[in-house]
């Protein structure tokens, strides 16, 4: 059986890569995908700890996270489409309407 700590380390690595993607990329779609990856890394933590403590609460929480992620993607991609229709770009540097 693989120790739980290994899963936690893997999850941390995936989360860090996702964070890097959010911070470094300028394409709004790739930023969005990186956010999804971070959510998944956290899900992995929940599931690993659910096994560690032999409790189901973690897995239920992952289910909730999945629901939230699905709703988030639907709304977020609608926003992306609206921005693209409005400004014709996927580069977030060009989306600065609220900048002072």
């Amino acid at each position, binding site marked *: *059986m*693989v120790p739980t700590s*290994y*899963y936690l380390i*893997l999850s941390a*690595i*995936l989360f860090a*890569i*996702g964070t*890097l*993607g959010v911070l*470094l*990329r300028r*394409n709004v*779609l*790739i930023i*969005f*995908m*990186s956010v*999804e*990856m971070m959510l*998944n890394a956290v*899900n*992995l933590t929940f*599931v*690993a700890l*659910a*096994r560690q403590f*032999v409790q*189901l*609460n973690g*897995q*239920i929480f*992952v*289910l*909730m996270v*999945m*629901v*939230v*992620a*699905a*709703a*988030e*993607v*639907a*709304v977020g*991609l*609608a*926003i*992306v*489409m*609206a921005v*693209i*229709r409005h400004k014709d770009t*996927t580069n977030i540097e060009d989306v600065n309407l609220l900048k002072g």
Partner: protein
Amino acid sequence: MFLFIVFAAVAIVAAIGVVVSRRPVYSALFLLLNFATLAAMYIMLQAQFLAVAQVIVYAGAIVVLFLFVVMLIGGGELNDIRQRNLALGARLTWPRVMALILGLLLVIGLGYGIVTGQLYPTQGDATAFGLGSVEAIGQTLYTDYLLPFELTSVLLLVGMVGAVVLARND
């Protein structure tokens, strides 16, 4: 342990692929691979229902939604796919080579896990199958977590209405 190393390596390299790919369509496909490896990990962690839900929700719905948008706005074009007389070497750009290697690794890992029985949840741990099965999840979800479960349906409704309103063309 071998399985974990294979899946972890595939997951990490796929994650890096998401971040560094030039084209969003490659990112979306690497994301799919990442989600698939995580589903395999859920099986190793005795969360069978979540593994299935991961494949259906993430790989089936979310990535497809991403691909729809990528195809819709452009940047999803695979230029050389129509050029029939291109040499094989010219077609093998680095994302394709990576995808080939990673996909093969995933298949090998899954095959190894199935043949040796490591991906069957009842082995090794006596409490195993009770933990993440559909029965256990359903029992908890419809008793202890009934109110949050019902509230998620409201959340989904709000998300749906929001998406329709935002995407409306007027």
